[in-house]
């Protein structure tokens, strides 16, 4: 039924799964991006000395083309409140006219290699399974592509802040961030302020105690406001900032040291500058392994 209604999405999911399975077969190990949401900003909880390995298969579809990417993320807990991350992509299919996005809290949906530092500056564990926490994120990125959306792409810096609540039943995170790309050969990608909000729920049926499997569902939302690009030293003044709002579900399953998450986001608002690519959907599948 789904195949009939959304033949292209179904095909892409199959493609993503195939890529992921092939990768697992090759590496013999697997890995996701933590145990929070897939797209929205979250707060880290890696133990001091803990290592989290991730591999994700991601896709972004516009009206004209679809990208496919594998992304790897290595995270290390310097202390229980300070985590370092390094993520690199393998681009399988790039977009010629890529929309401006980060796409994902610690795994960019574009072709950037990114190193980031997550600092949990506030944490209040106030009950069994319950805590409030807030995290500041700073990162630097280097592109693996020369041109993105017909603009020379340079290095970038990224900063974000997020705060959240976790319990055994309900979860919630809100956050906001800002990415700034440096000029390259007289051209510059516009800056990118963004915000995210996530609500999560674990149904009663999955309240079995450890080490039983643990599933939860999230409703995620992202708002992105990419600024104008600069071409040949001139700022494109044709329009103001674009506005994009995306909403979608994601699912997270955890078992022992393993985690799998998958989800999709669909645009509900796309107020774009002229010529900007219109998005159709984003898909991601993510595997985690905690060493």
């Amino acid at each position: 039924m789904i195949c009939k209604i959304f033949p292209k999405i179904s095909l892409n999911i199959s493609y993503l799964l195939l890529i992921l399975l092939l990768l697992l077969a090759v590496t013999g190990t697997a890995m996701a991006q933590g145990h929070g949401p897939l797209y929205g900003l979250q707060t880290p909880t890696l133990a001091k000395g803990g290592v989290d390995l991730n591999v994700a298969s991601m896709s972004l579809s516009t009206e004209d083309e679809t990208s496919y990417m594998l992304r790897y993320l290595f995270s290390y807990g310097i202390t229980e409140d300070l985590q370092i991350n390094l993520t690199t992509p393998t681009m399988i299919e790039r977009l010629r006219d890529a929309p401006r996005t980060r796409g994902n809290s610690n795994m960019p949906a574009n072709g950037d290699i990114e190193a980031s530092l997550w600092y949990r500056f506030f944490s209040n564990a106030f009950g069994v399974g319950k805590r409030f926490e807030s995290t500041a994120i700073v990162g630097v990125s280097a592109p693996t592509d020369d041109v993105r959306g017909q603009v020379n792409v340079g290095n970038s810096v990224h900063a974000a802040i997020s705060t959240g609540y976790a319990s055994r039943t309900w979860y919630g995170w809100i956050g906001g961030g800002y990415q700034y790309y440096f000029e390259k050969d007289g051209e510059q990608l516009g800056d990118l302020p963004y915000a995210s909000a996530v609500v999560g729920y674990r149904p009663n049926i999955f309240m079995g105690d450890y080490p039983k499997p643990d599933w939860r569902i999230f409703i995620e939302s992202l708002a992105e406001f990419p600024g104008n690009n600069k071409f040949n030293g001139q700022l494109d003044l044709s329009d103001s900032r674009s506005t994009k709002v995306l909403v979608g579900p994601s699912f997270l399953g955890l078992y022992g040291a393993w985690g799998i998450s998958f989800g999709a986001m669909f645009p509900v608002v796309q107020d774009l500058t002229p010529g900007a690519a219109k998005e159709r959907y984003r898909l991601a599948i993510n595997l985690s392994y905690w060493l």
Partner: protein
Amino acid sequence: MRNIFRIMIIGLFGIGTASGQITKVDQEVYGMDCAPCAYGLERGLKKMDGLQEVRVSLNDGKAYMGLAAENGLKLRSIQEEVKKNGFSAKKAEVTLMGNAKKEDGQWYFETANERFSVSQDTPTALLQKLTVGTATISGTVQDEEDDNLSGHWSIVLTKIE
């Protein structure tokens, strides 16, 4: 001469045993909400010398630990491991063998490497049963600075064996 040496060695070990140790800990953990959290804590605790069995419950918010007959484990080390995993160590229900002492009207229990002051919240009937010397006791322990790991323990006794 050799016999004297042997007696000295045995004596030294004897003193070590007599000075006491913790034998069981049910550690309350706040903030632990997911399977990898429990997995990480369980794995961290299992690496500690002296722990014989470890079970972590997300629903209870507790780590249940049985300690080896001979161990030098501190309650502080267990709570540091909890903190290292990003959670808060709260109360612990412990069973320990220690030496009871009374100083300036305050009762204490000492193991080989930690000291627990007996809380005034302990039922009077149990306080009246206390005598100086070795005893095995059970009770609820809380760090006096609650989660700051000061290592100054206060114990509310629930049982004296």
